[in-house]
């Protein structure tokens, strides 16, 4: 089956083409079915590949497709690499992807762009698969940009809304900033190693200077920052929530945004060599995690909260990467995919029920109206807050443990982040599902549970969110950490915990205790005291206001980049181009005319004057020839 790895991206591509060309002509049902089946087929193939790989001796198998770019020593074949990392990601992508496709058939049912939606979605899966399956940076980069494109298309799916379009554009451009870093990184890799193929490069990584490796690693990380919404390139992700909710679940939570993690894990060789790079990753990760978590505290849009939470969780993953816990990060990616997809889909279900309303201030008391959604959301919330035995607990704990090992300060920040996470997630939960309904009468009347096509994926994901932790049970429990063993072949320095069991227990206990405490605090705040978020901004205290406004980062960027560029654009055009360079060019022309007109005056028609001119010419000539030496 591994030989047929090309099938994995092929199926979504076929789905994309069918939907793309005939989407309008076939019925909605058929369109959705084709999309789902293509992903399902992909998933099955991925599963087969995964199994086969597990039994194979060679853990890193290359599948040739065709030759793509050749330029002397630069050979970029279209080649796939099947190894534990890629096969695992394939499973996540196609698996979650399939669930979300199914969910979408329900969620998008009323939308006029139904087939278009699936076209994009299939295309996205295709690119995402390319991203993880490629055997060189360029294939990854294709996928990398491709998913950016799909993200653009899907965020701006409702293209008549200007704000959505702006969000889409912002996402694309911010991603592109990262992509430039990535691309330069790739080029530096090529320049350094003469190749961009993973298997070649990693073998040679030790032979070049650490400085070069650091540069490469940092450049690649810029790419990861863009894609995985890390500081300072994170602002697009919250805006990206403009897209339909399944998109947020699939792209902006479960898969695409984890591409950065994937890429860093893929390149772990570089990061293992370069401490500077690793350190940077860790610091940016933790700062982002903390920063986004604080913003999450005061948001009122259900999807925005989840978006900031995603940013924050991604930061946590980078923290894991930074401290060398690559497999833990992948583990967290997996569990995060489960519970965050679940949360988003749940949120989608809520929004669906509320008829499009996303503001939690206008919700409340939904738990009885939409039971399945509530329960699954609850599971997801618990999972993300890190309570055992839900999956989030294990993955997060593993990262924090490794961080503790590495640096106490980072660990502390990580802890704070996870406490904040627990806070805002439960805030979300309480405000949405408990208390009294605060929406309009119409909405209340309209409330209903989502169709089966939406709830089934919820249930499946909820189940996964509960048991997902089993993939990476802590070693010190005496169990095998399946995940880290699985990934061992692709990681240069597998990182096994060296902490005492007591310390680990202690950390774990601390985490659980703090989470419980926060949940209780939240319960007190929102359930007992019935605190409600302020309706208007001016009711907030200044510091709250600042956080509520996301620290004004967007405004700062606006002032720092957008406005100056707009200004420059006008200035360059109006002043430099038209009034300076072109004016010089035109000025030459004008001065020709001017000189011409002046010289014309010499031609005044008077013979005497002409002769004077001639004589003066003679005088000058003789003067110059004979007298001036």
């Amino acid at each position, binding site marked *: 089956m591994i030989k047929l790895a090309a099938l994995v991206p092929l199926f979504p591509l076929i789905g994309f083409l069918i939907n793309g060309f005939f989407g309008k002509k076939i019925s909605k049902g058929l369109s959705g079915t084709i999309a789902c089946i293509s992903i399902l087929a992909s998933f099955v193939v991925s599963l087969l590949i995964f199994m086969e790989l597990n039994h194979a001796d060679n853990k890193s198998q290359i599948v040739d497709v065709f030759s793509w770019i050749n330029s*002397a020593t630069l050979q970029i074949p279209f080649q796939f690499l099947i190894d534990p990392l890629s096969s695992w990601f394939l499973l996540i992508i196609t698996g979650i992807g399939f669930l979300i496709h199914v969910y979408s058939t329900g969620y998008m049912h009323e939308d006029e762009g139904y087939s278009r939606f699936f076209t994009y979605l299939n295309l996205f899966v295709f690119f995402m698969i390319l991203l993880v399956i490629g055997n060189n940076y360029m294939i990854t980069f*294709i996928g990398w940009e491709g998913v950016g494109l799909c993200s653009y298309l899907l965020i701006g799916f409702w293209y008549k809304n200007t704000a959505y379009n702006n969000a889409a554009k912002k996402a*694309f451009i911010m991603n592109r900033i990262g992509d430039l870093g990535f691309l330069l990184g790739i080029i*530096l890799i*090529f320049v350094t190693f003469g190749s961009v193929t993973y298997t070649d490069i990693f073998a040679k990584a030790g032979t070049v200077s650490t400085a070069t490796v650091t540069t490469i690693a940092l450049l690649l990380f810029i790419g990861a920052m863009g894609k995985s919404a890390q500081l300072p390139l994170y602002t697009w992700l919250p805006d990206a929530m403009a897209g339909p909710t399944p998109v947020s679940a699939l792209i902006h939570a479960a898969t695409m945004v984890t591409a950065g993690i994937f890429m860093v894990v893929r390149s772990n060789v570089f990061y293992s060599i370069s401490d500077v790079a690793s350190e940077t990753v860790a610091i940016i990760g933790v700062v982002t995690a903390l920063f986004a978590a604080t913003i999450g505290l005061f948001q009122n849009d259900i999807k925005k909260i989840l978006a900031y939470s995603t940013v924050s969780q991604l930061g946590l993953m980078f923290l894991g990467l930074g401290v060398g816990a690559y497999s833990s990060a992948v583990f967290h990616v997996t569990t995060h995919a489960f519970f965050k997809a679940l949360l988003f889909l749940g949120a989608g279900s809520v929004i669906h029920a509320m008829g499009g309303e996303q503001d939690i201030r206008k919700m409340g008391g939904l738990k009885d109206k939409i039971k399945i959604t509530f329960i699954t959301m609850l599971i997801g919330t618990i999972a993300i807050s890190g309570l055992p035995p839900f999956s989030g607990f294990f993955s997060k704990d593993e990262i924090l443990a490794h961080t503790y090992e590495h640096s106490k300060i980072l660990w502390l920040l990580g802890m704070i982040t996870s406490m904040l996470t627990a806070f805002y997630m439960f805030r979300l939960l309480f405000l949405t599902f408990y208390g009294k309904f605060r929406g309009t009468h119409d909405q209340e009347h309209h409330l209903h549970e989502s169709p089966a096509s939406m709830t089934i994926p919820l249930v499946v994901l909820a189940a996964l969110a509960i048991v997902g932790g089993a993939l990476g049970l802590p070693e010190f429990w005496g169990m095998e950490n399946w995940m880290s063993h699985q990934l061992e072949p692709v990681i240069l320095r597998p990182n096994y915990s060296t902490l005492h069991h007591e310390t680990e227990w202690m950390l774990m206990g601390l985490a659980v205790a703090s989470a419980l405490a926060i949940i209780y605090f939240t319960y007190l705040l929102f359930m007992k005291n019935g605190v409600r978020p302020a309706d208007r901004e001016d009711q907030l205290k200044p510091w709250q206001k600042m956080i509520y406004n996301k620290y004004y980062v967007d405004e700062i960027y606006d002032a720092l980049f957008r406005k100056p560029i*707009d200004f*420059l*654009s006008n200035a360059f055009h109006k002043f430099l181009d038209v009034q300076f360079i072109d004016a010089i060019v035109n000025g030459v022309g004008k001065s020709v005319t001017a000189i011409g007109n002046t010289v014309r005056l010499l031609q005044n028609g008077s013979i005497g004057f002409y002769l004077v001119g001639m004589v003066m010419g003679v005088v000058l000539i003789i003067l110059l020839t004979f007298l001036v030496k």
Partner: protein
Amino acid sequence: MLAVLLILFPLFCSFILFISKGNSGRTIALAATVIEFVLGLAAFYLFKHNPDSNLLSYNCVWVESLNIHFAIEINALSLLMVLLTTFLLPLIILTTFNKSENHPSNFYALILMMQMALIGVFTANDGFLFYVFWELALIPIYFICLLWGGNNRGVITFKFFVYTLIGSLFMLIGLIYLYNHTNVEGHKSWAVLDLYTAGHSLTATQQGAVFWLIFIAFAIKMPVFPFHTWQPDTYVVAPTQGTMLLSGIMLKMGTFGVIKWLLPVVPLGLQEWGGTAITLSVIGIIYASIIAISQKDFKRLIAYSSIAHVGLISAGILAANQQGIQGGLMQMLAHGVNVVGLFFIADILMRHTGTREIDKLGGIRSMNGNFAVLFLIIVLGAVALPLTNGFVGEFLLINGVYQYSATMAAFAGLTIILGAVYMLRSYQNIMLGEKKDSSLAFGPLHANDKIVLVIICIAIIAFGVYPKPLNDIAEQGTRSIIALMK
């Protein structure tokens, strides 16, 4: 012989068109260009199987006393350009099918004449012949712009004409200078290889002078900052087909010229001045991109974007390494297709809505989804998304520049960000959102328009996904040039 046919056939058809009256012009022109394309493909096929075939080159004495030869050759480099030219011409002719011009026959005749000159420029193996074709290409386009252009065309096309002409005269001086230094058994020679030898024999200072003399011509043609001011105006004012010819093919004369007539000629000059030229190119990239952001007229926006793209091409080529030059070649092909597509889009917008003002348009997507998709694909090609044709070249180019200087590459790379900014912004404003003007109507596309756009889109994707056939040729061509630079 095939090579000669490629040049003479359009000329012949052009004469027929000049003579023919009435409305049969467009059919003849289309047929002619399609046949020409088939000839181009034949050359491609032949080259693949028998690159040394004597059908692909031709050499006879033209002016004996000056040792000027009518020497043309289809080699790896020129083949690509010939393919581009012959591929684009039928499309360009097709784009005219929905509007009526005055004197259509003359219009087509000029276009075909232009094709002849362009193919001549690309295939010439004799310095003098190259120059002659170079100038010849200028005249039809000048008339096309002048006779069928928009408002204020007189002054603007004029600037273009004079500007480029002065540039090419400098080139002529440079070439003559080289010619005077050739020595083949006591005779002077215009043959390209002899000019290379002559160039190599010069001192560094002389090479520097020759470098600038020749580079100016190319820089104006491309155009490279700060020689670009003729370009936006001309592109805007020229008729769509003229703009397509200018930007799609003619501009490549400059870049092609750098590859074939500059790099291998003056290696020392390049060493000394290449950096300056690259800096100018890179400044041009950023400068033009930034300007493009605020443009109101879509055509003008494309014009500036073209400056930016060409800046990258020129920077890459001047970096003079395998990746840079090869990327330049690939990007020339890609840019040719994309920019023609974009200008055609602008033309369609103009025809359907009567305006190209980005701010006045909007919401077209909801009126014509197919158009939106095709437009989007072309935009994606222009922003060099992977798996579109623009990417291969752009990657190789940035790679090439990087090998020259990492800082330059970082600046040059800004194009992928800024490109996305202005392209998406304009796409959004034109196509997405709600209609800004309720009177705005956008009916279905004409069949011809659709055919052209679809072909362009297919080309964009096909050569993004599988660039190998062209890429192999580009690689081969680049190798030969690199070898000659030593």
